[in-house]
């Protein structure tokens, strides 16, 4: 149990020694998890950009399974 007034040991350990176990040779190579995360992150960003630019601005009812009833005015077409 940490002494009164001290930082919890887990947090303190991690903050105080960020380069732990970094002497091993594996530190010089990019870890596998970084490659996997990087690929997923890039794919997500690309997907987002493609969806944003391909689909254009949001249209009400565009996400509904029926594609909207078509019987209503588009939002931008409301009279001023």
């Amino acid at each position, binding site marked *: 149990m940490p002494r009164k007034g001290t*930082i919890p040991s887990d*947090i303190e350990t*991690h*903050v*105080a020694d*960020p*380069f*732990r*176990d*970094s002497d091993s040779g594996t*530190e*010089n190579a*990019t*870890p596998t*998890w*970084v490659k996997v*995360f990087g690929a997923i*992150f890039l794919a*997500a*960003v690309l997907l*987002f950009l493609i969806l*944003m630019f391909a689909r254009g*601005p*949001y249209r*009400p*009812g565009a*996400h*509904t399974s*029926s594609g*909207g*009833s078509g*019987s*209503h*005015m588009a*939002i931008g077409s409301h009279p001023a």
Partner: protein
Amino acid sequence: MIMPPRVRTFALTAHVTCSVGWIGAVLVFLALAIVGLTSEDAQVVRGAYVVMEPVAWSVLVPLAFASLMTGIIQGLGTTWGLFRHYWVLFKLLIAAFATLVLLIYMETFRIMARVAADPNADIAMVRNPSPRLHAVLALSVLLVATVLAIYKPRGLTPYGRRRQHEQRSIAGS
């Protein structure tokens, strides 16, 4: 500049609070989105979509920015740095990306609220699965960021390795 321990603990508390609060707010939006899609009461459905925009502006956006800012302060104010460790870098990218998507999505919230507030709009037109999808995706990426923060997987960036080498050279001389 490395923060003194007490300031560091305060900054960490602020960062954890904002980040956990952000996840909680996304969970509330997921609940609202499910209510909007499944409720039989038309007024409840309309209300769910109308309330999303002001709540997003007053809770989601501030928490997203607070989480991002306190995270940057944490990185700059501790020996972890912002660009030295891959897990910190990924957390930064996740928070920045999620905040950007949220800001872009605010326009969608605004349009959905206008449709829901229009008494002439059919309830099928008001219902929209988009908030549910976005809430699930946001929850997923925020949980990934949380896992990274807790497990702190090893791995130094090339910049981090350079800094480590410099520090060891200084310490050895």
